[in-house]
């Protein structure tokens, strides 16, 4: 499959990237390109211009800023895996990075690219030739949702591995736009809409991920379920974090955005993590999500996997 035509910008400073995005309507940022370029080949994303972030040194690297660890947006997943301190403090983050795609996705793919990846659906992530058999789906610019058979709605699923790990680590996102720099909780990066899943204003980019050092005091773990040990997106991914009486749990690949499992967290608040307590909490796993069969995996199966995966992740905390 071939890429469509687009213009390519390769700034070396953040400000220039933002200008380039602002000056080219419809332009998109590209980091490793492992998500975006595939969608462009499928003709489901057709930005007329790409602004590459890969030459901007400021966007790379892992550093300490006060009481937070700051990871540059364009830090690759491999670089995250290789950082020993990250591994010690935030094991879930490193486990998630190791779980993404294959070796190649990890060496090309970046942290922000992973967080900002598009949502997925069996009717959307297909070529133009494949999709023309049906009417254009809502997400691709038409009206219909072929999964639920309704109009003007989209349940495409957020399937990134990094987001749940960062959610339980209470990470924030540093954003830069024409007006300057701001910080938002990671959860606020996601709109919850299948059609446009990111709540990022135009000409804004993620410049870094900020993890409070305090999160390093707790234990964390990421558990991914997929058929193959390589390449596959998660069928379900679960991250847990625990410190004293408080537990944070997040899932991916179960809804239009990565989700914190509030029901589980509430049920376990102040509880001892005994077998029965965990089992009981696990039954609440699918409470806060809208499961829709956007892949071949049936909803009931995914619900079961959510529960089992949560249990496994908690167990792994020791």
């Amino acid at each position, binding site marked *: 499959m071939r890429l469509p035509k687009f213009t390519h910008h390769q700034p070396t400073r953040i400000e220039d990237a933002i200008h380039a995005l602002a000056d080219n309507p419809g332009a998109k940022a590209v980091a490793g390109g492992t998500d975006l370029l595939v969608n462009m080949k499928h003709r489901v994303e057709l930005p007329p211009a790409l602004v590459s972030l890969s030459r901007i040194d400021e966007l790379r690297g892992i550093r300490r800023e006060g009481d937070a660890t700051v990871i540059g947006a364009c830090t690759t997943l491999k670089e995250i895996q290789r950082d020993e301190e990250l591994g010690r403090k935030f094991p879930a983050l490193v486990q998630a990075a190791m779980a993404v795609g294959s070796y190649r996705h990890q060496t090309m793919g970046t942290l922000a690219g992973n967080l900002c990846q598009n949502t997925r659906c069996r009717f959307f992530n297909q070529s133009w030739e494949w999709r023309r058999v049906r009417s254009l789906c809502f997400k691709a610019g038409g009206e219909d949702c072929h999964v639920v058979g309704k109009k003007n709605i989209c349940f495409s699923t957020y399937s990134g591995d990094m987001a749940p790990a960062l959610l339980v680590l209470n990470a924030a996102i540093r954003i830069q736009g024409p007006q300057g720099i701001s910080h938002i909780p990671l959860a606020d990066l996601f709109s919850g809409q299948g059609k446009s899943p990111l709540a990022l204003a135009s000409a804004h980019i993620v410049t870094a991920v900020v993890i409070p050092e305090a999160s390093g005091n707790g234990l964390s773990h990421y558990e991914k379920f997929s058929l193959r040990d*390589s390449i596959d997106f998660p069928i379900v991914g679960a991250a847990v974090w625990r410190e004293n009486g408080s537990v944070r749990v997040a899932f991916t690949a179960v809804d239009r955005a990565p989700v914190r499992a509030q029901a589980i967290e509430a049920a376990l608040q102040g509880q001892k993590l005994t077998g029965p307590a965990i089992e009981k909490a696990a039954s609440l796993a699918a409470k806060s999500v809208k499961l829709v069969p956007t892949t071949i995996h049936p909803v009931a199966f995914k619900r079961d996997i959510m529960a089992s995966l949560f249990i496994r992740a908690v167990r792994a905390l020791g």
Partner: protein
Amino acid sequence: MKVLNTVGQRVPMHDAATKVTGQAQFTDDLALPGMLYGKLVRSTIPHGRIVSIDVSRAKALPGVKGVITGKDIPDRVYGIVPKAKDEHALARDKVHYIGDAVAAVVAVDKEIAEEAARLVHVEYEPIPAVFDPLDAIKEGAPLIHDNLKTNISASIHKEFGDVEKGFAASDYVFEDTFFSQAVNHAPIEPHAALAAYDLQNGDLTIWSCTQIPYFLKRNLATTLLVPENKIRVIKPKVGGGFGQKIDMYAKDFCACWFAKELGRPVKFLYEREEVFQSTRQRHPMYLTVKTGVNKAGKILAQKITAYADGGAYNSTAPLMITLSCFFIMIPYRIENLIYEGYHVYTNKPVGGAMRGHGIPQARFAIERQIDLIAKRIGVDAAEMRVINAIRAGMPHPAGFIINTCGFADSVTEAAKAIGWKEKRGKLPFGRGVGLAGASFPSGVANMAHLASGAVVQLSREGRVSILSGAADIGQGAETVICQIVAEQIGVPMEDVHITAADTGTCPLDAGTFGSGVTVRAGNAALLAANDVRDQLFSFVADRLKCKPDDLMTANRRIWVKGNPDAGMSLSDALFEYQYSNRPLPIVGRGGWIPPAEQPTSLLTKNGNFSPNYSFMTQAAEVEVDLELGKVKVVKMVTVHDCGQPINPMLVEGQLEGSIMGGMGQALYEDSTCIEGQQYNPSFLDYGFPTVMEMPEMGALHIDTDDPVGPFGAKEAGEGTQLAPAPAIVNAIADAIGVEFNRLPVTPQVVLEALKKNADKS
């Protein structure tokens, strides 16, 4: 026993270095000056009449050099089995599945070709479609091909022995139904063709990733209406076939057609998606097996009913369903058998030959049922296989001649290797072992085209050049042929060179299918090499004052048997040969056709189908994740009777590939459709196992010395693909007590089954 120098050695593939350094040229690596790029327009509906095709916008696009539809080309059908031809290069009146080719465009670059294809507008009148063979055979089902009265396009009804009597004599009779899903061959190289036309003499040359150049040539001649001697098919390096590259496709026809019409080279390259949707896949098959056994587990009669989902066209239909039938009677001795098999059209991607070709589906059913029966009547499943094993010299109800057979030993050895005694039924819940057996022909004894030829030249410098028609598709056919020739002429591998699978310069060959290459083309090469050696030896014997039969050769030296000092170097021999005024190079020829007193394709009559038969047992150990349903294959061993392995490393390559393929069939792969549209047409979504999923693997060999194969060789290609899937599913049953009779066994079905069992208890 004969001492061998090159045969039997772990020689690397002769083109390995060029492949790993990226220098080997596959079809898409080739480019010719002025080359045009083609693209096919494919049906977007599963079934319907073509009302009109508007190509005007495509034609008007600058850079477009040609657009054709089915009406612009001869009304000729093609197909791999002559009497089952039913496919047009481009659909004429009807489309039969989503992905059927309806038009083709060529342009000066790929982008323009793609855009032009999108501009072709086809108007259809949809016809109700049918997607399951069991629906397609119902009264009133939509008729897929107008020239037939039903959707059954091939069938077989056979009775061997006396089945009624067999059942009457049985202590138990069991009936079970099994289903094997569609899987795709997924060769790493997508299908491609490049054609060029010589305006001066009318010669048409096509480079195509084909497994069978000579069949392709013939099909091109009959569809293009060009004499066969004007067509030259060249097979460049091929990145895997597994049977998918046996058929001719629209890309072959269209590349040739445009090259001839336009006088410019034309290339077609399929997208991965087209490989999944518009080439071939393994036939999904429903099999109902009724088996009568005595108390000891001896099979006294079997009755089998099979429905194969053929998809929209025949491809190899009659042969596939025939193989499925006849190979029930091997590796077990089944004296009384009724087999009723149907190849049914549906509006889906087309079934075709795929490693094992109709036999894996039957093997899955039979090998699963043996385990079921063993459990029901309380005999050991491995022992039941030994009790029923066919042995060398035993009569086969259809007339197969079993000269050598290591099957019974392979069962015993495989059981030992997997730890059957200690493990079967004794491992903790969630862990289990299972095994399954199989047999496969080494090629097809007689059908049109089924001979191989070889020419071997020995030059003045001692360089050996082979011409062979054999089609190496990555399995190492060329290497094996070089080894055989090197052995006979007594030179190291690096002195031997091969030019193969070019119908313009190489002798006839049947091609790569039915696991026949090593035995057939290997024997032809052996004869040609012997011819060279005989010429050389008769000269050298004169010089050394001995009989030619007394001479030995190895390591570029010829000497008198038992007297190593009485000899000369090959170089000296050739020097003297030249100065004795003999013509050089020394040229040897060989041709080989399987010996068959009663040649048969089995389609119409019984007989010895193949020159010889391989046998094997594969055993698996699995671990089931009881919470997530995932099955991990921990270990897999193969015990194999392939006669004399010409190259043990290449045999192991086949074994390892078959384990991966078997795991895919058993656990991972499902070429599913949504309303006739192939749903997962990418390596990401299709999800075959990767090297990460591979288990610990072991291979053991049962020695047999076959009288027909070169150096006693038998096939080692397709056969090993038959048993891995049932072995794995048998192991799952041992692990969790759930009997899965439907493939694939995904985490979802495992969890459902575990839940159901938990609810019960």
